[in-house]
């Protein structure tokens, strides 16, 4: 057991903190009018990783195998880490005196900017893995492009996250293949999950004025530009998994603009409980 002085070292709180870069923001310096759109876009990235990471953390201690418990927690941990970076940068860009935690814990549903796919309930482990695969495939392509972002901080975050997401995608596509081509039951469950989730995938490739502004400034690719590569990647994996690709992937949108499913409110009620119940307390 550590001795008392050892127990009181304050650095425990810093162990999980990511250092945000303090480098020059060239594009932002030249075009300060970009800030509102950039803030919105950063919230879309950070809220999607936050909400999905939160969903994964619900699996804690309940996975189908010990190795899976560890892996799911690991991916959740990575995504919450990305959230720290994306929302941390959003708070800096906003210059409104809000902290990362203020953004995560004190915004209500209509201010959340995650895609709807991320907030859908876990269902069985098959649905969780299929949701992860569809997201990872997009996430990976997006980060590959963001490494070239005109905003240095965005490029740095992307480079850091890309290493982890490469592993996420490798893992989720492998499991989708194995379970799709496993038993009749695992195949049926994976197909059912795919059918349910597919109509939410279109939102990842649908741009609006915010996307256009950040794309114009070279911050991020246009969402539409990722569609072809995503479709090719996903189709190949689903083919190997012996699963059939559903027809219409573009039914449910609105998450990026703050119009969510009914599920998000409950997620936030749980996640934000302490910050809401004890305003101003430090934890």
């Amino acid at each position, binding site marked *: 057991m550590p001795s008392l002085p050892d127990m009181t070292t304050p650095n425990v709180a810093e*162990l*999980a903190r990511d250092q945000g870069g303090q480098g020059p923001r060239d594009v932002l310096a030249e075009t300060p009018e970009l800030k509102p759109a950039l803030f919105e876009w950063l919230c879309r990235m950070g809220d999607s990783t936050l909400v999905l990471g939160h969903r994964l953390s619900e699996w804690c201690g309940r996975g189908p195998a010990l190795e899976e418990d560890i892996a799911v927690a690991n991916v959740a941990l990575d995504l919450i880490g990305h959230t720290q970076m994306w929302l941390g940068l959003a708070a800096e860009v906003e210059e409104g005196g809000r902290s990362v935690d203020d953004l995560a814990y004190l915004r209500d549903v209509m201010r959340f900017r995650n895609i709807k796919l991320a907030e859908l309930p876990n269902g069985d482990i098959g649905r969780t893995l299929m949701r992860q695969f569809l997201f990872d495939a997009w996430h990976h392509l997006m980060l590959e492009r963001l490494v070239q972002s005109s905003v240095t901080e965005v490029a740095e975050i992307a480079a850091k996250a890309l290493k982890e997401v490469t592993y996420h995608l490798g893992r989720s596509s492998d499991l989708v293949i194995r379970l799709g081509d496993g038993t009749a039951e695992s195949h049926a469950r994976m197909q059912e999950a795919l059918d349910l989730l597919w109509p939410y995938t279109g939102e990842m490739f649908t741009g609006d004025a915010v996307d256009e502004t950040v794309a114009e400034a070279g911050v991020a690719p246009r969402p539409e530009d990722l569609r072809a590569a995503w479709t090719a990647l996903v189709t190949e994996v689903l083919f190997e998994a012996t699963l059939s690709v559903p027809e219409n992937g573009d039914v449910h949108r609105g998450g990026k603009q703050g119009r969510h499913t009914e599920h998000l409110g409950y997620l936030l009620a749980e996640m934000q409980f302490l910050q809401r119940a*004890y305003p101003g307390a430090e934890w």
Partner: protein
Amino acid sequence: MYAQMVKSEGSSGEETPEEREFQDRIDRGEKIEPKEWMPAGYRKTLIRQISQHAHSEIVGQLPEGNWITRAPTLERKQILLAKVQDEAGHGLYLYSAAETLGISRDEMYEQLHSGKAKYSSIFNYPTLTWADMGAVGWLVDGAAIMNQVPLQRTSYGPYSRAMIRICKEESFHQRQGYHIMMKMARGTEAQREMAQDALNRFWYPALMMFGPSDANSVHSEQSMAWKIKINTNDELRQRFVNETVPQAEFLGLEVPDPDLAWNEEKGGYDFSQPDWDEFFEVLKGNGPCNKERLGARVKAWEDGAWFRDGLTAYAEKASARRAASATAAE
């Protein structure tokens, strides 16, 4: 914690030359390795002790998992997730160590799910407020470390090596728990109240983690001769109280024991025993959360059957395909 009620299987009758030689090796401080000869009782006792410890790590994810989705900041959420992930990892090392003794992980799960194998009774207590994440880290991991540090020197090689890895991570767990308590104890009135309440609820269950007094237990003697157990339950409990009381004072919290007093003569605190009747009730399955904890594990296992079957079926198909293509190539 894990070793609270493991009774060793002593040999009956005369000591054989093999048993003598085995005991001499242990007395010389040699490690026993998986393929080497060992008395049946040693093997059986170790399997029970290591698997009970592994089960405790796995079930132990649940009371803390209960607060991961409600952690108050992103950083706290990350720390708690990392901690619970470590615990699953500890379960994995320990199941692997037990497997070297000739039992499979599935058999051990079966024993857990049927209620035949035990896990630490501390995890049958509920985590009611965020301060409980502090109390669990500080007191429960603190008590676990007290037990585990000596076990790094245990005679069975794979167990000893697993304990060395586990102890490194546990001390981080304990510090993060204490840090939560510090924030709460020095926070708002409501936070201080939660911190004191958590200490009140977890103090005696933490003392129970060392097991009942083993003054009269012959089984303990055998386990100590085999270096499966290094200290007596009472020694460890006393050491825990001696270290924890000043930590509580530093936090400005009160240990819920009116009879707690420093005893100059023995160089330690005098303290009240926990309610051992309650301990045995919890062990029998009548604790506040026994049904929920075991139920959650059984449900996870049953719900995951199709997943495990799917992976197995795929692996079989893949190896059949490889075999077929090898034949075709000939």
